[in-house]
């Protein structure tokens, strides 16, 4: 291959190859031209006839969307049929005139016109677009009498999605809405274009979006003969659609309702999980919204109200709110210490009411301290000093390793939204995290002093209520961990075949039973003689729990006085619990934004939820705050 390096020969060869390329291009185009001649001249008559006979068109038949029911069969999302008045713009002539004329016989509001305009902009061509939905029988009859005057206008029977429980569980169920360009991209990337012919709604959030391709079903079609104007004349063949699959949830709608009521007008979140399966029994984020508003296309006013409301009802706090866990972190810290051999249950410290590190004093909430504190007492009375020292002894990496294994600081993968990118990760502090989080080298370094407040669930710690509930359920289930999920099974509508969504645990932490028992005993003590005792006074079951208070506002050493602080700056109240302690049926995490102490506002909500779930006891309305509840928690 010596001639590679001769510039002149190179150039000659290049020119020759260019010539070859020209010949190749011309040949390829000649093949195309040949194909065109074949189709357009030789076979022209055949295709001409077929085009003229192309009076046969396939009309897609949209399948019924799957129904969503709770664990007891209560319907949470279903479809109903209603008449709509629709215009096909390409056949209707001047749109404004048509609509004005229609308005003389049928009630058309300015908001209907606005929505029509918007849908027209988004629409694919030749699609028929609704100008009025939910016509009454009288209106249908009235239009039928005038139909001849309106080419391109039709009354169609369409299925509408409805959420019978309204705002209840709206963050879990989500909603559907008209397909937009963004949804089209999703459909195209999933290679589902053919199946979405004729479909104009799609899941936008929550379960409706996560299980979109299960719920949708298979589109059928009808071969119909059409006249020159494109109107169907005669049906030739019909392939029926296959309805979408139904979802049977792990959620208990009544429990959900009671829980939402228990929050009253307070902002917050509660996630309750069945420990043995990871199935979510209730997932609350307050305030909520009515998903029915979105089905026909939400009006701009409603959207503005929901979107700009200061308490942000559209945010699902259960997976998108990340909060410091406060003292609810302590049982997990104690368990980590036992598992890693850093403490025995009996080992006690003497608590003077503070812990000195360097020249900084970390204070306990109780002036003068708790005296001699062993592990049991440290949880029951929520002693901060015990955990300051423990965190310092363990070091940040050991803490991060153990908490990470409980799923804290990671997306749980709960079955909501298109994929898990909609879920917040929270923050599991570690050296690696800090290095990634900050830019300046002096900020990237982890300081030993920062580890100390991590021990009481403050500092950089931030977890979602879903993560806390998952960790609590894992603790209740002796270290066997499930992915939290809302759908128990997917039911194939045709065959009745049921598919379990999450039959197996994701991992077993292999905790020592002895250690788990120590923690359980102490958490039961919390509700008997500790910070949760008032909320659970007289409960006929044993419940393991832990209160917590997460700081919103740093008081810089001043004494925290609840009434002196504005409502938005009050601390967040937390509570984690599982019951019955010996054989847990429910594990939960509650968070009340600006609720003050955990014992005061979060624990009473947990009491109502557990009372209903275990005893069937119906409460009346919102849980009351208990201002007398003593909290011995830190405001370091």
């Amino acid at each position, binding site marked *: *291959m010596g001639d*590679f*390096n001769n*510039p002149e020969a*190179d150039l000659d*060869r*290049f*020119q020759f*190859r*260019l010539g070859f*390329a*020209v010949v190749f*291009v*011309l040949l*390829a*185009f000649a*093949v*195309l*031209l040949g*194909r*065109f*001649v074949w*189709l*357009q*001249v030789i*076979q*022209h008559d*055949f*295709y*001409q006839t*077929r*085009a*003229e006979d*192309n009076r046969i*068109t*396939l009309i*897609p038949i949209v399948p019924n969307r799957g129904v969503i029911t709770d664990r007891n069969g209560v319907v949470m999302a279903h479809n109903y049929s209603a008449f709509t008045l629709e215009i096909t*713009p*390409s056949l209707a002539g001047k749109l404004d005139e048509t609509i004005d004329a229609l308005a003389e016989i049928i009630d058309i509001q300015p908001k209907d016109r606005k929505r029509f305009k918007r849908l027209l*902009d988004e629409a694919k*061509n*030749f699609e028929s677009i609704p100008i009025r939905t939910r016509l009454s029988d009288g209106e249908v009859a009235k239009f039928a009498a005038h139909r001849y005057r309106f080419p391109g206008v039709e009354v169609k029977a369409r299925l509408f999605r409805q959420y019978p429980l309204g705002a209840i569980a709206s963050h879990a169920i989500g909603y559907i809405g008209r397909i937009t360009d963004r949804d089209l991209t*999703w459909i195209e*990337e*999933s*290679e*589902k*274009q*053919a*199946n979405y*012919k004729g479909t104009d709604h799609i899941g936008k959030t929550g379960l409706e979006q996560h299980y979109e*391709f299960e719920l949708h079903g298979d*589109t059928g*079609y009808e071969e119909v003969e*059409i006249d020159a104007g*494109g109107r169907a004349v005669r049906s030739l063949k019909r392939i029926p659609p296959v309805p979408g699959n139904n979802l049977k949830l792990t959620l208990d709608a009544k429990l959900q309702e009671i829980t939402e009521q228990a929050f009253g007008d307070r902002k917050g979140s509660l996630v309750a999980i069945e420990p043995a399966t990871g199935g979510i029994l209730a997932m609350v984020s307050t305030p909520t919204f009515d998903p029915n508003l979105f089905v026909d296309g939400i009006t701009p006013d409603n959207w503005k109200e929901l979107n700009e409301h200061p308490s942000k009802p559209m945010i699902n706090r259960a997976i998108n709110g990340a909060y410091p866990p406060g003292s609810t972190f302590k049982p997990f810290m104690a368990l980590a210490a036992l598992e890693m051999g850093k403490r025995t249950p009996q080992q006690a410290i003497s608590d003077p009411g503070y812990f000195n590190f360097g020249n900084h004093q970390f204070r306990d909430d109780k002036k003068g301290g708790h005296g001699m504190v062993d592990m049991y007492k440290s949880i029951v009375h929520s002693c901060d000093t015990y955990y300051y020292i423990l965190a310092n002894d363990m070091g940040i990496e050991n803490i991060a390793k153990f908490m990470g294994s409980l799923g804290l600081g990671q997306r749980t993968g709960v079955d909501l939204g298109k*994929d898990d*990118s909609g879920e917040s990760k929270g923050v599991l502090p570690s050296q690696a995290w800090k290095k990634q989080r900050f830019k300046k080298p002096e900020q990237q370094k982890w300081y030993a002093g920062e580890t100390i407040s991590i021990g009481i669930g403050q500092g950089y710690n931030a977890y979602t209520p879903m993560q806390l509930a998952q960790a609590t359920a894992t603790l209740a289930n002796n270290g066997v961990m499930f992915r939290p999920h809302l759908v128990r099974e997917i039911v194939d509508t045709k065959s009745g075949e049921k598919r379990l969504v999450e039959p197996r645990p994701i991992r077993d932490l292999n905790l020592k039973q002895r250690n788990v028992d120590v923690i359980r005993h102490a958490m039961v003590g919390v509700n008997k003689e500790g910070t949760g005792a008032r909320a659970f006074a007289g409960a006929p079951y044993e419940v393991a729990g832990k209160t917590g208070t997460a700081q919103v506002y740093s008081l810089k050493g001043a004494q925290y006085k609840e009434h002196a602080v504005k409502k938005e700056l009050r601390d967040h109240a937390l509570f984690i619990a599982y019951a019955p302690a010996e054989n847990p049926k429910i594990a939960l995490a509650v968070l009340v934004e600006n609720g003050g102490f955990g014992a005061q506002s979060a624990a009473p909500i947990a009491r109502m939820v557990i009372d209903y779930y275990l005893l069937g006891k119906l409460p009346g309305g919102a849980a009351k705050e208990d201002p007398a509840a003593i909290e011995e928690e830190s405001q370091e």
Partner: protein
Amino acid sequence: MIDFAGTVRRGWQHLIAHIDFPLLLITVLIMGVGLATIYSATFDSSHRMLNQAGNMGFAMVIMWFVSRIPPQKLMSFAIPLYIAGLLLLVAVFLFGIKVNGAKRWLSIGVTRIQPSEIMKIAMPLMLAWYFQKYEATLRFKHFIVAGLLLLIPFALIAKQPDLGTALLVGAAGFFVIFFAGLPWKVILGFVVAGGSAAPFLWNMLHDYQQRRILTLIDPTTDPLGAGYHIIQATIAIGSGGAFGKGFLNGTQTHLEFIPEKHTDFIFAVYSEEWGLLGNGLLLVLYTLLIGRGLMIASAAPTLFSRLLAGAITLGFFTYAFINMGMVSGILPVVGVPLPFMSYGGTALVTLFLGIGILMSIQTHRMLVKK
């Protein structure tokens, strides 16, 4: 007195100094045909047509900037662009957004990008740079290295899986290697080996890819999907006849028989309304475009610019041939738009980057001569 007219004239000449008018004229003609066809395909509103005109304006501004960059400068983009493209492809492989089995997109906060698009330009740029670097010491081993530079991104894109884009990127790279003098024996060897490995390759294809090819053979197996597209597009073309049904008169188009009619299947709309005559005209326009590109390649002063110009030009050919072939039913349906005709901004930007590079190669050569 200030010579106002003179200033304007000089300013204007400065502005157009790097525009190659034959190339500009041909692309504008094809785009004009494209806009008219988009209008017909969506004729109840001119919304898409206006949008596309905006896309064209934007893409041509990019072309203008690129045309002003001298080829020597373009060479310095080769490695960074190729490496960036490769890293992004690896990132897609590792963290890409998976949608129903296909990982093509990378999320960058606000939006998503499709890194394989970058490779359409980065690949020929890189290989042309590589052959330029070893121009004086070229050995057969360099072809092997070039082959690897081609194969890695190709495999990453094919694995996503996105066979259409992988083929386009692969073709762009192959053209460089071909023009650089890949021995005929090797080419022939690949053709023979490829032919005999066909059954094996068939098994490597994904289900949906196999289905697309089977659909080509028997379109009736997929009446709502791709098979329906092929049947209806063929009817549209065939019924167009020698002279077409006339602008805005295509029944197949306006009775909604043609899918994707302003994007991938726009050729069916055009062909129905303008017939064999129109098709011939369009083929002539594409031939002129390719001819002009190859002329620029032929006259280019350096190996780098020759290879790059040749490969970009044959890239345009590949787009056009695959698209018209698929719409007229002789190639399987892959997502390849018709260059300068189909609706869509991303493809236009990539195409005009290519045009800008061709103009740069052409006009900077003339400056050197002067």
